[in-house]
């Protein structure tokens, strides 16, 4: 895996590249990928999942499960959720005054009350202050890493995907943190971004591929590029979506399906 820690190019610049060099959209990959997935997945899952679909998410691509203590796990989950909210707010040009309080208010507006919000509400003053600083740092890294957002771009944050395969026996569920531009405007200009609050690792590359595969199946058009930005380290990783990358994504999904159906 090769990641970039380049302060001169933002992740959005790297993803969008040179406008003049964008190819025409590829529309033939979707059917080929779907056929390849369905043939192999049916052999793995068999008929037993028709009333209880096998759901494959990006976290299932990880070969070694993450082991965290309960408190660390809660902090990590809250940080992840808050950074996704930060991205959603930045995508509409929001300017933060107090990132932690702003993000907490936004999150509460969406879900009402839940276990994780209650966890935050019950932190003592010192822990809350520490965590607030941590969130401010991640938000600053996100803003810096993203760079300027063009006023004419068509941005969609938190794009949910639910691709049903094998007549609904398998569901590929995914959330693409940011998708820019739309399909069907002449040149292929759809790019995808994933956001992580941890350092990049081998799984990051699999997640990039998973996003590209899901977007291709969902829209019938292959995206141009897919990338990931780490708010923990500022690293970014950007890949062109090629046939090889999508073929590898299919292999990743089949491997995950094998692991989940025969643990």
């Amino acid at each position, binding site marked *: 895996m090769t990641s970039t820690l380049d302060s001169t190019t933002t992740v959005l610049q790297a993803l969008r590249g040179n406008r003049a060099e964008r190819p025409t959209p590829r529309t033939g990959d979707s059917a080929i990928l779907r056929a390849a997935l369905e043939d192999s997945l049916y052999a793995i899952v068999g008929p037993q999942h028709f009333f209880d679909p096998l759901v494959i998410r990006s976290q299932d691509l990880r070969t070694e499960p993450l082991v965290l203590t309960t408190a660390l796990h809660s902090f990590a989950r809250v940080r992840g959720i808050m950074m996704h909210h930060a991205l959603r707010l930045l*995508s509409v040009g929001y300017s933060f005054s107090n990132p932690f309080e702003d993000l907490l208010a936004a999150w509460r507006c969406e879900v009402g009350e839940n276990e994780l919000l209650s966890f935050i509400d019950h932190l003592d003053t010192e822990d809350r202050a520490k965590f607030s600083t941590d969130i401010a740092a991640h938000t600053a890294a996100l803003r810096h890493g993203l760079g300027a957002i063009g006023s004419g771009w068509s941005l969609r944050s938190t794009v*949910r995907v*639910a691709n049903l395969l094998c007549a609904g026996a398998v569901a590929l569920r995914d959330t693409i943190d940011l998708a820019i531009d739309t399909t069907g405007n002449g040149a292929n200009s759809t790019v995808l971004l994933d956001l992580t609050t941890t350092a990049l690792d081998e799984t990051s590359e699999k997640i990039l591929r998973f996003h590209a595969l899901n977007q291709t199946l969902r829209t019938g058009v292959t995206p141009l590029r897919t990338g990931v930005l780490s708010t923990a380290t500022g690293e970014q990783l950007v890949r062109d979506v090629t046939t090889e990358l999508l073929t590898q994504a299919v292999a990743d999904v089949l491997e995950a399906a094998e692991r989940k159906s025969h643990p």
Partner: protein
Amino acid sequence: MTSLTTSFVSPGAMNSLINSAPAETLEITSEQRSALAERFRQVSLPHHRRLDAWMVERGAGVLTPFRWSPTTARRVLGNAALRYRLAHQVSAMAALDEVVVDHLSRAASGYARRGSLSTWLCELSTAQLALVTSDALNWSHSLEEIARSVDGAVEVADSDAYYDVATGRTTLRGRRDLISTTSEQRTIIRVRAGAPGRTAGAGLRADLTIDAFSQPTGHVAQQIIGVWPDAGLLLRVEGSLEDLKAGARDLLRVANLQHTAYFQRALAS
């Protein structure tokens, strides 16, 4: 036999469905309106009620009480923003700002009801308002992408379809997002989140039926197309007599379930 066609989202898929709409045109007659009203009257409740396709899809399932959230507000705001954008040729963000400001000024000037979207938006902080805007912008972009994939004339629906069955103290609400019209046919397009379930076809049929009854002329749309952008799926139900009958039957089934549940509760207490 009822009709239900499924296809995957791809460039040209929407046009292909629209162009293959059935040629025949149906009209709801006054006898059919009276028959529906009579059936609803038989299962009426002491109070007024509103039925929609979501209730048909859920069947007897318990519905969670409604609360405004970015998710429940996105369709209202996103549709209005796209309608404004197409009429005034402004950016998607500027159109959405106009729509939100309109809601806020309505609440500030005292024209908004308690519990309405305008009142809720007025109570939000700027960060919360930005989150609502973000979700509505996503919806608006998705809707615009679908609208632009249609070759013919397409417009954002002015409002959902409402049909009041006065004698049955029932209002039917049919959701519709886009309407594609040519000289020979009318296609209703409905955008949905998530993936279609087993009852998605019944939901589309209910929306189609309500739309037909809400038309003063009684003209039935040639088809309704449900788009599930998250799942990349298109479902099409044709405006045939069988589909309309099935749609009306499903709505009556929900009305009947509510009627039975209400009187069982009354007897128990």
